[in-house]
C-alpha cells in the first residue's frame, strides 16, 4: 500500500484551483486562435479578440479570467493500492478552501434553498472512482453557472437513437444561445441511467479534441454535431458567426433495452480543467 499524506493533496488541489482560474486550457486556446482566423465578420472576431486579450491579462496579472470562479467539481481516480493519510474528502475540501482564499476568488456556494453563502466556496462536488495501481489522479473543474445552468438530462425515445440525440443536443444549444458564453465546448453523455448520463456528459467535457472516441459511430456523431451546431449562427458571444462550439466530445455507456438516457453539459469558452497525478 502506498501512503499519500493529506497535506500533499491539499496543496495539489489548491494549486489546481489557482492555475485553472488564471490560465486558459491549452486545447481551448489552440481552437480559439483557429476560430479567430476563420471568422470574417467584425463582431464575432472582436469577441474572440477580447477573449484572447482577457486571457493574457489574467495570466500576466494573476486575475481570474472570469469573475465566476465557479463551483469546484473534482474528479478523483484513486488507485486501489493508495491510502490517504488524513482523509481524501477532507483534503480536497481543504485544498479548495485554501485555493479560493489565496487566489482571491469569488465564493459562490450557497445552501440551495435558503441561499446562505458558505463563505469559503466549499463544499466541492467530488466524484471518486477506484482504478488499478498506486496513483492518485485529481482533476479540478471549476464550473461557472452561466454555462452549467444550460445543461440538461433527458430520457429519449429509442426509435432512431442517433436522430433523437442530435435533436436533443441541437435544441439545447439553440436554447442556451449567448447565455453560456460561446464559443463553447460541449460534453455529451449517452447511456447508463439518468444520473450516469449526466456524469458521463461532465466527464466528456474534460476530454480534449485529441481524445476522440474509439467507436466509429460515436466519432461520426461528434463530428456531425460540431458541424451542425456551428451552422446555428449563434457564434462568439451569441452575436452570430461560424464558431458556436469549439469541440463536441461524447462518452457512452451501455444502457437498458427500453431506454436512451442522454445528457448535455456545456462549458463556456472559459472552460477550466487542470489535472495532477500524485
Amino acid at each position, binding site marked *: 500500500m502506498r501512503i499519500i499524506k493529506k497535506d500533499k493533496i491539499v496543496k495539489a488541489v489548491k494549486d489546481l484551483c489557482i492555475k485553472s482560474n488564471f490560465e486558459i486550457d491549452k486545447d481551448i486556446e489552440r481552437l480559439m486562435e483557429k476560430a479567430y482566423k476563420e471568422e470574417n465578420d467584425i*463582431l464575432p472576431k*472582436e*469577441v474572440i479578440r*477580447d*477573449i484572447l*486579450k*482577457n*486571457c493574457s*491579462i*489574467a495570466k500576466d*496579472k*494573476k*486575475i*481570474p*479570467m*472570469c*469573475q*465566476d*470562479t465557479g463551483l469546484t467539481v473534482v474528479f478523483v481516480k484513486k488507485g486501489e493500492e493508495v491510502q490517504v493519510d488524513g482523509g481524501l474528502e477532507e483534503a480536497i475540501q481543504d485544498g479548495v478552501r485554501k485555493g479560493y482564499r489565496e487566489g*482571491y*476568488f*469569488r*465564493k*459562490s456556494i450557497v445552501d440551495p434553498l435558503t*441561499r446562505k*453563502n458558505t463563505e469559503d466556496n466549499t463544499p466541492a462536488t467530488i466524484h471518486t472512482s477506484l482504478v488499478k495501481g498506486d496513483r492518485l489522479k485529481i482533476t479540478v473543474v471549476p464550473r*461557472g453557472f*452561466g454555462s452549467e*445552468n444550460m445543461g440538461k438530462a433527458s430520457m429519449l425515445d429509442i426509435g432512431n437513437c442517433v436522430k433523437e440525440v442530435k435533436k436533443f443536443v441541437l435544441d439545447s444549444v439553440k436554447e442556451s*444561445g*449567448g*447565455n453560456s*458564453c460561446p464559443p463553447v465546448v460541449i460534453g455529451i453523455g449517452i447511456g447508463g441511467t439518468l444520473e450516469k448520463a449526466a456524469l458521463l456528459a461532465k466527464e466528456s467535457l474534460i476530454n480534449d479534441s485529441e481524445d476522440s472516441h474509439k467507436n466509429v459511430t460515436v466519432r461520426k456523431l461528434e463530428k456531425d454535431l460540431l458541424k451542425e451546431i456551428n451552422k446555428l*449562427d449563434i457564434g462568439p*458571444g*451569441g*452575436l*452570430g458567426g461560424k464558431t458556436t462550439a469549439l469541440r463536441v466530445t461524447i462518452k457512452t455507456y451501455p444502457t437498458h433495452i427500453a431506454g436512451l438516457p442522454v445528457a448535455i453539459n456545456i462549458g*463556456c*469558452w*472559459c472552460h477550466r480543467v487542470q489535472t495532477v497525478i500524485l
Partner: protein
Amino acid sequence: MKKIRLPLDEKIISGLNAGDRVLLTGIIYTARDATHKRLADCIKNKKKLPLELRNQMIYYTGPAPEKPKQIIGSCGPTTSSRMDEYTPSLLEKGLKGMIGKGDRSKEVVSEIKKHKAIYFIAPGGCGALLSQTVKKCDLVAYGELGCEAIYKLEIKDFPAIVGIDCNGKNIYNRR
C-alpha cells in the same frame, strides 16, 4: 467605435442602434440576482431605494474579491435573463441602461422600448479585461450580500455592444 459619456440621456440613447460598438465612460452601479429581488421588494412595498435610479445604468456582475492594492477583482457580466422579472419595475423608476450578457424576455424588450432605455452586452467571461477599465469602486448598499452588493463603479472606456436599442431592435433576433 462610439465613445459614450455617462449618465445616459435621451439624445445619446436615441443615437445608438443594436450592434453598435461603444466605449463607456462614467458611473455605473453593480446589481445581480439577490439585489434585484431586494430592489423590486422596496419598490413593491413603497420603501426608499438605496440609490437613485433615474437616468442611471446597472451592470449585472458579481465581482471576484480584489487583491491588496487592486481596485476590483475580475468583473465580467452575468446572464441578464435572470433579472428579467425585476427589470420592468426598475425601468419604471427611471433606470435607463443595463449591461449584461445574453438575450432578454419579450416583456423586457417592450419595456425598454416603452421607457426609451437601452441594453448593452459586455464580453462574456472577460472579467479580467473588464476589471482594467474600473478606476474606482465604492460600496453603496447591501454590503452583507458580498459580491452581490451594490457597488458604484467609475469606468473608463468599458467595451460594450448595443444589444437592444430604444426602438426595441434586438441583436439576438437575427434568426
